[in-house]
């Protein structure tokens, strides 16, 4: 069910933009004719398998590859010693101490998490490579293991001697005057500890690449599924001691990413070394168990000593918190997560006084990488927990408390205490729509009905923002020496010789339907149909249509990706008009592009040139064009949004440009005997401004919601005290199956972005709302059974059961001081 409420008039709905046209990508994919990297073969290709650490933390005493090399069909090996000689450590983004960490493509001298690659073996078949890897003998000397961030913070055991501390980065963000706000508050609500757990979106296609080395030119071609090749190359080229021009990234179809395919540079560097060493193409496909143990977890974050300032009428004026982020064994993309959350500092609320004392530490767990909702989701979960804990402890209605504290639509565009600008939205209206979808008025009756059946019913709301289009200048708030700022994305649009419209993207889609939405935008500008627009699949560095930050991440395609497509298409349109005017001997104003023709408006039938004529004139029949008129019909455009510079002293600035809203609402029934949570009703309302293709937007809402439901109820990377991951495959790490999903109701609103080229906001990452609302609903359900406080973002039956058994243990976390 979709309910649409238009918040403002959108002017773009006359054409293909705004229509749910079926996707162009699907025809090949439903026939099994997509091309994923593992489908690509090369003559003489070798298969790579990594030898991985079974220890959470250990010294490497020795590595002996001789038995592996004796096997027929084994082509070669690489160990950490070779990596240490042939490459430099990856560039670290942090200041000291984290900046001193040395991170190589393979473990050098020491392993710091279970599954860390210590050697690689290449052989003629997948099976043989795996056998040979088992024959590599590694002697380890076990070291004490750290799996808890609060323990790591004590530095009694230190993972990285070069850093001398487990702290990667720490800093205090202080906006407004939180001490005064707390002093003037009628109530101060304290929460000692909240924990946002470790999980990841686990794309169904694991990571990997086919890497070829050209000995003549010294160039590598990586046919791969990296979702951020621009930045991947920035990591890899200096480590390999080559220019960035030596790395060609090629992607085709990608089987999901969700951020988990951003930090693939360590494995890719090993593949580059192997391809060069063996002078043959090499291929690596990650196994699922390896994906879970050693690729990309989402950031785990513990919130300590939360204090919230609340007025008697429920107005909240701010909060302070200590945040302890656990990035696992190596920072990789971190410490960016130490600032990304600040894009949504006050959540959806008009809180002006906020202090966050943020520290990130290393532990003996898998490194993290961005994961759908990256870093903002953790912080927004905190803001939503604050609302529901305050509501529960002070007796406010969670709906009314939200509405009282939400930023109001008439305040838009709204500047947050740290200088971010919420561009548009109507949070209260979105909440009302969610309440309507879930029939909020019937909750108490349903609660009674559940009670009669021996169940505890609970209702919860999750408000969330999806901030899109990063300003990479925010990295300078972590490290002023970093030379990053702004953002960019490129696209090229050309008219080919037989009139074909060909679009090349710099983005790296993994299911978001870029081929379709880009074709919709181009078709409207050039006056043709999306079927006539060929959007090339995937990314290829050699297309020369990428920019430094190219990729598909951080909810920005709708802005930068389509902004680049629009810009390039408009350049092409203008040139086509100019060319037609010249050929038809008419003023440019008289020319229109429509129905695949450039023609004189209201002119005779023959005063029309098909696209084919324009393409042929420029490309093949151009002798009559005058020397001072040189159309190319081939245009590249870079969308470079304006941000201004950030203030590194005050830690303020425009960190991102668009803010899509999602309000989720859930009704759960908890079985008090078992702690099993049953989702019985669910609604998600999305407002991402202009929807280029509403069906694709709704699909993103469904998918993000499923991720949230999995994360809230079952998906958790659990480590034992020895650093062994206990949930390393889909048996133990339960993702939602078809029978686990509740019926989803969706609603849509459109508050066009005043800053985005098409009024459209990035929107794929709003699913965190699901985690927030399920936590709230469980807390509501437990209210009549001891009033436990939900303190963890993941609530599988055993945790809910514990809260039912001992609610006081959770309540001891919370206190209220009233004046």
């Amino acid at each position: 069910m979709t309910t649409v409420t238009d918040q403002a008039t959108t002017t773009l709905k006359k054409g293909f933009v705004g229509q749910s046209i079926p996707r162009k990508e699907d025809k090949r994919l439903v026939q099994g004719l997509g091309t994923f990297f593992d489908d690509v073969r090369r003559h003489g290709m070798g298969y790579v398998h990594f030898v991985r650490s079974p220890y959470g933390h250990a010294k490497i005493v020795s590595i002996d590859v001789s038995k592996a090399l004796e096997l027929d069909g084994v082509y070669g090996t690489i160990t950490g010693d070779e990596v240490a000689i042939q490459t430099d450590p990856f560039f670290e983004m942090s200041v000291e101490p984290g900046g001193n960490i040395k991170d190589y493509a393979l473990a050098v001298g020491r392993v710091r998490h279970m599954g860390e690659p210590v050697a690689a073996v290449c052989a003629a078949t997948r099976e043989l490579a795996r056998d040979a890897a088992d024959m590599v003998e590694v002697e380890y000397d076990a070291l004490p293991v750290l799996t808890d961030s609060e323990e790591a913070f004590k530095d009694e055991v230190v993972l990285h001697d070069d850093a001398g501390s487990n702290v990667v980065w720490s800093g205090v963000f202080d906006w407004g005057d939180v001490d005064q706000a707390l002093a003037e508050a009628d109530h101060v609500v304290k929460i000692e500890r909240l924990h946002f757990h470790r999980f990841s979106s686990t794309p169904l296609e694991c990571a990997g690449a086919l890497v070829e080395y050209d000995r003549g030119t010294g160039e590598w071609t990586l046919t791969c599924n990296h979702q951020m090749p621009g930045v991947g190359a920035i990591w890899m080229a200096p480590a390999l001691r080559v220019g960035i021009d030596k790395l060609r990234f090629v992607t085709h179809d990608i089987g999901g990413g969700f951020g988990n395919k951003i930090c693939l540079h360590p494995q890719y560097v090993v593949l580059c070394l192997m391809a060069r060493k063996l002078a043959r193409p090499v291929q690596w496909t990650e196994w699922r168990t390896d994906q879970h143990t050693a690729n990309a977890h989402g950031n785990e974050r513990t919130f300590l000593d939360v204090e919230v300032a609340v007025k008697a009428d429920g107005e909240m004026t701010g909060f302070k918190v200590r945040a302890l982020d656990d990035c696992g064994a190596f920072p990789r993309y971190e410490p960016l997560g130490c600032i990304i959350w600040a894009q949504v500092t006050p959540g959806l609320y008009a809180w002006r006084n906020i202090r966050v004392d943020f520290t990130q530490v290393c532990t003996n767990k898998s490194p993290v990488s961005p994961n759908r909702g990256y870093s903002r989701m953790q912080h927004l979960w905190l803001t939503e927990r604050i609302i529901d804990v305050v509501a529960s402890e002070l007796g406010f209605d969670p709906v009314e408390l939200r509405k009282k504290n939400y930023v109001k639509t008439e305040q838009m565009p709204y500047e947050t205490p740290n200088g971010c600008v919420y561009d548009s939205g109507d949070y209260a209206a979105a909440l009302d729509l969610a309440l309507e979808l879930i029939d909020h008025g019937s909750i108490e009756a349903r609660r009674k009905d559940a009670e009669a059946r021996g169940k505890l019913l609970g209702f919860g709301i999750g408000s969330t923002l999806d901030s899109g289009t990063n300003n990479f200048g925010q990295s300078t708030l972590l490290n002023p020496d970093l030379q990053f700022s702004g953002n960019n994305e490129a696209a090229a649009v050309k008219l080919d010789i037989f009139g074909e419209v060909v679009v090349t993207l710099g983005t790296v889609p993994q299911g978001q339907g870029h081929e379709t939405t880009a074709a919709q935008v181009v078709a409207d500008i050039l006056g043709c149909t999306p079927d006539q627009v060929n959007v090339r699949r995937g990314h290829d560095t050699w297309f020369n249509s990428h920019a430094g930050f190219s990729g598909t991440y951080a909810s920005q395609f709708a802005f930068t990706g389509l902004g680049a497509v629009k810009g390039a298409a408009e350049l092409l349109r203008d040139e086509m008009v100019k060319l037609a005017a010249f050929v038809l001997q008419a003023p440019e104003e008289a020319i229109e592009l429509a129905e695949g023709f450039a023609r004189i408006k209201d002119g005779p039938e023959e005063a029309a040139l098909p696209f084919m004529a324009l393409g042929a004139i420029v490309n093949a029949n151009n002798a009559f064009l005058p020397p001072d008129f040189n159309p190319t019909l081939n245009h590249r455009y870079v969308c470079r949004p304006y941000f201004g510079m950030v203030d590194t002293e005050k830690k303020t600035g425009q960190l991102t440009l668009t803010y899509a809203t999602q309000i989720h609402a859930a009704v759960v029934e908890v079985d008090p005997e078992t702690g099993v949570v049953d989702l019985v009703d669910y609604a998600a309302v999305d407002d991402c401004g202009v929807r280029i293709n509403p069906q694709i937007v709704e699909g993103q809402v469904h998918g993000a919601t499923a991720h949230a439901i999995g994360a809230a109820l079952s998906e958790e990377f659990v480590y034992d005290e020895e650093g062994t991951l206990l949930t390393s495959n889909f048996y133990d790490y339960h993702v939602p199956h078809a029978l686990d999903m509740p019926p989803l109701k969706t609603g849509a609103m459109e508050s066009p972005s005043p800053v985005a080229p098409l009024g459209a906001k990035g929107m794929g990452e709003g699913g965190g709302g699901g985690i927030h609302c399920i936590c709230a609903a469980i807390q509501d359900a437990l209210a009549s059974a001891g009033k436990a406080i939900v303190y963890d973002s993941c609530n599988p039956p055993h945790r809910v059961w514990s809260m039912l058994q001992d609610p006081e243990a959770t309540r001891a976390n919370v206190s209220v001081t009233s004046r």
Partner: protein
Amino acid sequence: MAGPARSRTISLDVNGEQIEYDVPARRLLVHFLRDDLGLTGTHVGCDTGNCGACTVHLNGEPVKSCMLLAVQADGAGITTVEGLAQDGELTALQQAFNAHHALQCGYCTPGMLMSATALLSKNPSPSEEDVRIAIQGNICRCTGYVNIVEAVVAAGKGT
């Protein structure tokens, strides 16, 4: 003394084509289909038989081809996703997947189609619940299953 055979010649029908192939005894059916026959539409998403991306039909029944050795398919008839459309004409189910936006990245799609095709062959008008049961062994990480279920139900009704 000779050890157990390390390879064996198998004979099977794949998408209507009779094939004879000498395969290593240890090779999984999914790797035989993908690496030896080049039928790369069948995907691998896990190493534990959970995800169902590798689902094919063996004598008309849906099976996870990562849970079978290629030699176990000796004498059988196999249909993969490449065998669904005839002469480029998509099946009603494939068309419904497109119309209902039942796929995003497309990685689970071949397995979903094979499970759902098997369902429709036995139960031409399945309910939503029937569909959810039939695809419970197929994991999708993009769609939340909403539009997949809708597409299969619609294909069943022939809409």
